[in-house]
Structures are given as C-alpha cells and as structure tokens.
C-alpha cells in the first residue's frame, strides 16, 4: 500500500478516490492533483510506483495545505474570531451555529445530542 505524506495509506481503490483519504483533498482536488502529477486517476492506487507516489507527495508538499497544517490553519482562523471578540467568535465559543441558522430548534450538529430538561413544557413529570 502506498504511503503519501506519512500516515495516509490509501487502499486498493482508484487513485483519485484513495487520494481523498488525505485530509483536505476532495473530489476536485484529487483529480487536479492526478493531472498535475501525470498520474492516471482511474488506475488503482496499489499500481502506483514509487515515482508516482513521490511526485504526488512533492506537489502536495509544495502547493497545498493538507492534514496537520490545514487543521492548524482552521483552528487559528477560529481562534482569531474568538480573539477579536466578534459575533462569530462568540458563537464558536458557545458551540452554536455561526452562520445565522436558527438555534431554537435543530442545530443538533453543533449542540450535540439532545439534553432533556425536566419541568419544561411538553416533558412529562412523574
């Protein structure tokens, strides 16, 4: 199994699919990367030779932010919002949606599993 940038071990899927196991690479990026490296995106990943892998790795290294650095960048952006005391930052701090969605109901992705409050309207008391 080929290893690209340390930990990522894409399996025996087509190259453009396996590249998406790298954090920060989606469908579009995977195809672009293949083109840049001159790799056939439809060939299976296990058929890639050393040369192909190293070419992919150098391009990734040079031109894109993926994995750790990307994660760090995202965290830094959020930290900046918190730091300057913006509304979006305060929403991040409270783990609520930041882009104006309603939070009276729904917003479960951000709020996590439902926490039932006793004594609230609709909740049956024993």
């Amino acid at each position, binding site marked *: 199994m080929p290893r690209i940038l340390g930990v990522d071990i894409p399996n025996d899927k087509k190259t453009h699919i396996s590249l998406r196991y790298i954090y920060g690479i989606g469908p579009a990026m995977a195809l672009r990367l293949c083109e840049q490296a001159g790799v056939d995106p439809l060939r299976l990943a296990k058929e890639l030779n050393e040369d192909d892998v190293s070419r992919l790795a150098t391009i990734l290294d040079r031109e894109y932010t993926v994995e750790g650095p990307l994660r760090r960048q995202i965290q830094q952006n959020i930290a900046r919002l918190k730091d*300057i005391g913006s509304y979006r930052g305060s929403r991040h701090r409270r783990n609520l949606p930041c*882009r104006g969605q309603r939070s009276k109901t729904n917003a479960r992705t951000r709020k996590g599993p439902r926490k039932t409050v006793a*004594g609230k309207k609709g909740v049956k008391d024993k």
Partner: protein
Amino acid sequence: MGRSLKKGPHVDLRLLEKVEKLKAKGNRDPIKTWARDCTIIPDFVGLTFLVHNGKLFLKVYATEDMVGHNLGEFSPTRTFRGHTAKSKSSSK
C-alpha cells in the same frame, strides 16, 4: 458573508467622513455610530467606535485583526442570561 467582490467593501460614507475629520484633528475621541453594517477598513485601525446595539453604544476598539469585519459584529444585540435553573411551579 458572501458580498460580491465587484462592489467592494461597504463603508458608511458619513462615518468615513467623521473618521477623516478626526484623523486630521489628531484626537482619538470615540465616534458614536449606528452604522453597524459598515466594514472596518485599515483607516479605522486604532480608533474607538461607540456602536449602537439597539439599546446602548458599546465601545469597539478597531484593531488590525478586525479589518474586513463589520462594526456590528462586535456589538452584540442579544443578551442571553441562561435558562432558569428550576421552576418550582411544575406548570405544564
């Protein structure tokens, strides 16, 4: 989010005028404003604004990092004091 680049940032013209006047004079008095939708541009850095939140004017000191955000983003309009801990009247 997602304002067309073609238009450029929205800056309240009257506020900009005030900023320029203040800069010419060289003092740093806070500027009272209702223009919450005004983008903070590099010229605003180092100035203090009193941004209306519908009730009060909150002090907003514009820093380098705030460039590109709107004044209103730093003057919250809602107060959330938390939910009631436990209402003894088990009503409904």
